[in-house]
């Protein structure tokens, strides 16, 4: 059974959106999906770079009203 959870990392400089995402990825189970919300301009590229390198899966990646909404599935 998959969970879906929002990781709200808007307006954060430290630890920052990707670090927040990694924290939450460690807490969830394989198959779970997370949606990261970020106002960091770099997230649209930084997050997929890490997700792809570590071997998780990007489900969607879009910017809506200045906020990145990136959905990820934990794959391992």
């Amino acid at each position, binding site marked *: 059974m998959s969970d879906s959870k929002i990781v*709200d*990392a808007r*307006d*954060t*400089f*430290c*630890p*920052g*959106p*990707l*670090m*927040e995402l*990694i*924290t939450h990825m*460690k*807490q969830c189970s394989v198959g779970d999906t997370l949606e990261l919300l970020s106002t960091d301009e*770099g997230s649209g590229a*930084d997050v997929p*770079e*890490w997700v792809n*390198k*570590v071997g998780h899966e990007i489900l969607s990646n879009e910017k809506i009203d200045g906020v990145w909404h990136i959905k990820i599935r934990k794959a391992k």
Partner: protein
Amino acid sequence: MRILVVGGGTGGTIVANNLARRLSAEIRARKVRITMLSASDKHMYQPGLLYVAFGQMTPDALYRDQASLLEESINFHVDPAAKFDLDNKRVTTQSGKVHEYDILVMATGSRIVPETIPGLAEGAESFYTEAGAVKLFKKLRVIQEGTVAVVVGVPHKCPIAPIEFVFSLHDYFKARGIRDKIKIKYHYPIGRIHTIKEVATWAKPEFDRMGIEYETLFNVGEVDVENQVVKSEEGTETKYDLLVAIPPHRGMEVLEQNNLGEGGWIPTDRFKLTMIGHDDVYVLGDTTNLPVSKTGSAAHFEAEVVAENIASIIKIGVPVREYDGKVYCFIETGHDSATYAMFNYQTPPDLKSPSKPMHWFKMAYNQMYWTSVRGLL
């Protein structure tokens, strides 16, 4: 009005002292009672562990008796919380004593969990405990050559510590005259060398100048202790002679046992600093699940907001402030220079060039902390 503060670290101590002063008349009139529960009768200045790791401070200098830091009107018990009944506003301690409250302040902090990564506890040194910092110093003072690898767990307390540690390593080996025989290799979980963009931009040329090697997108997956190899979740590995870890952290076990938050982090309103769904429960410091640095500085600024709001609720019925995400972190850039990063939810840090006076200020703050935690600074 019964105020119960759970946790005697930086945040809990500042909240309790600040409240005791703001509500001194109400306490004298027996209308308010402040109680603190803590796991220890000692209070540690945790940033000092970095200096212990380099032989610049001894552990005894890091401690004060917790009771000596608290206003006399605070009822202090060394009897940690064991069970939380938020619906009935009751906390039961390890000794079995029940404390009923009207307002609860959760400031239980965080703990290191190196055991969550295979081989890390056995294979890596760390300066996040007194024993660990002393052990690390004893290793640093005898190493003559080889690779010192630094890895960073997620999440971790004091996000500046990895950078500070590496700069201090460089200066330490330089002072010992063996810097050219030691390779320092720094590994960081995301795609730049520090999570704060401005810090990463400033530190990268400094690393290059000092000959510090670095690998980004490196999340520690496993340590092969026998072969002295640390492997990343991303599929890379580094052979080391000495491995130093900023260990991953979790919230306190008692919070997980009481189902107060995933990972032991309590879901918290980022402005009000109340527990989501419980307006009579305030949360601060490492204990929150907020996307805010887990540092004494954040705990300090949050504590001031929490104390001011609790006092104003008692005096006028409503809170008066919101937390704006403020954090101020010193950054030691070696053994004789420092800078700082200050930011909040809306304003990124504007990093200044490191200077000797800022290092001296940090040295002074290491003593001023005891004034700060009493709520006087």
